[in-house]
């Protein structure tokens, strides 16, 4: 049976780390993820874990130390946000190319500039092509559950990729909410032992990792890496199935909320999904067929499954909490639209950039989106598809 608790999102991640008891944690503080290494170092100081905690001098070194540790054969974790993630950028690509299943808690925050400590998704969205599996979390509960599942997903023999578990900075990271925890033993059994095949400290087989690779080999190595991301989709679902058996909490590649018969739909990531669910409920009471799709797994991107789930809508809004500054919309919209191509590419799709730099997202804002969708549905088409929500005009 689960343990009924109340924790903030950061506490729940730190607690998951404690229950997993990894070999190495290397981290550098940055708001709003700071509390994670802070709580964790307390567990270390009190002997609650026997992890080597490496309090590095920068995020670049955090990821570098994680790479060294994981390559050496240790189960390794870290946490960061925003500029910290950006400072790791170079190493993110190297970690995934080296096929190192490091687990990272990414507490989403606006990437400078201007300097802003509040939530949006510009940090992890920017890292979307770094070869990390990305799993997003609406609540502290999901952050906790995803983090535990993430370890197993990344370490799976057919995957071997680093995993980023994202949640909204402050909105869930610092909000205390109800949560159901697993028993320590359950967590340990669920993630199992890290048992890599090849690692630096293997007494039977010294190895060399991180070569210079010339044009004769790099292409094949990237293809090999891509296969891991392709394989990950199936593994994510398998792990979710086992997790469900154990906890009764069901996870998929995404959550379809009242979407089956919906005419108006939105696609949304992280905590805003919860706020939007309340709006969907209200609209349903009014007889409006509203629904939503909440992205859980953004990398690998489940394009076919998403297109199937959305294809019967009459109007769709994609909500981007990141401005990709492409001049045509946000990153999520680009992916969703390309997923729909060939399946429902004449469906009117509108893209909203919203919540940048921690601009609060209220139920009224979401209602406005559904109002817009209603109009679009009636008209059957839409012209201005690149919009802002909650912006002072």
């Amino acid at each position, binding site marked *: 049976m689960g343990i009924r608790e109340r924790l903030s999102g950061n506490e729940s991640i730190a607690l998951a780390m404690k229950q997993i008891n990894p070999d190495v944690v290397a981290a550098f503080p940055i708001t709003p993820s700071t509390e994670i290494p802070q709580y964790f170092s307390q567990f270390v100081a009190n002997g609650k874990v026997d992890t080597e905690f490496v309090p590095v001098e920068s995020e670049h070194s955090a990821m570098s130390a994680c790479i060294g540790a994981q390559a050496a054969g240790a189960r390794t974790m870290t946490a960061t946000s925003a500029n910290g993630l950006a400072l790791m950028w170079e190493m993110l690509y190297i970690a995934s*190319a*080296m*096929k*190192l299943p490091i687990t990272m808690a990414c507490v989403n925050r606006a990437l400078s500039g201007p300097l802003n400590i509040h939530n949006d998704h510009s940090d992890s969205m920017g890292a979307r092509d770094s070869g990390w599996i990305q799993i997003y979390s609406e609540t502290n509960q999901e952050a906790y559950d995803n983090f535990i599942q993430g370890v197993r997903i990344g370490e799976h023999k057919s995957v*071997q990729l680093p995993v980023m578990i994202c949640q909204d900075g402050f909105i869930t990271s610092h909000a205390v909410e109800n949560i159901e925890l697993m028993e320590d033993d359950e967590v340990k059994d669920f993630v199992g032992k890290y048992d890599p*095949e*090849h690692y630096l400290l293997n007494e039977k*087989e*010294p*190895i*060399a*990792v*991180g*070569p210079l*690779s010339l044009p*004769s*080999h790099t*292409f*094949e*190595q990237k*293809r*090999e*890496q891509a*296969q*891991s991301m392709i394989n990950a989709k199936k593994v994510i679902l398998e792990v979710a199935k086992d997790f469900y058996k154990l906890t009764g909490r069901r996870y998929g590649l995404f959550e379809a909320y009242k979407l089956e018969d919906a005419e108006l739909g939105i696609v949304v990531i992280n905590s805003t999904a919860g706020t939007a669910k309340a709006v969907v409920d209200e609209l349903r009471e009014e007889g409006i067929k509203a629904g939503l799709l909440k992205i859980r797994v953004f990398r690998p991107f489940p394009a076919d499954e998403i297109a199937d789930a959305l294809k019967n809508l009459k109007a769709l809004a994609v909500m981007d909490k990141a401005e990709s500054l492409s001049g045509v919309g946000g990153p999520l919209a680009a992916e969703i639209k390309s997923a729909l191509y060939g399946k429902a590419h004449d469906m009117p799709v509108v893209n909203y950039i919203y919540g940048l730099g921690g601009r609060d997202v209220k139920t009224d804002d979401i209602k406005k989106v559904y109002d817009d969708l209603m109009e679009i549905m009636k008209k059957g088409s839409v012209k201005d598809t690149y919009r802002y929500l909650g912006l002072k005009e």
Partner: protein
Amino acid sequence: MKGNLAGHMKENLTWRETTPGGTIYDAGSAEKFKTGDWRAMKPVWIIEKCTQCMLCPPTCPDSAIPVKDSKRLDYDYNHCKGCGVCAEVCPFGAIDFVREDAEEV
């Protein structure tokens, strides 16, 4: 596992054959890569003049002067790049440094 590359070290590895992350599982595999053909000049060991003082083996950038039982052996010409550092350090004139094709001529 597609681990040990020693057996099939080839330039045209397919993506299914290449190693994940470009990891190499047989340490010291470079031994199979010959750098001897980089040589324009060549050191020649004159065994009669050699006192086995051991000053030359540590100066070789290519580990091409094998040592056994505290004695140097003849050159590993598969790897010697012909830099001439060893010849320069020999106090006894026991290493000639000649043009690569000198012997044939």
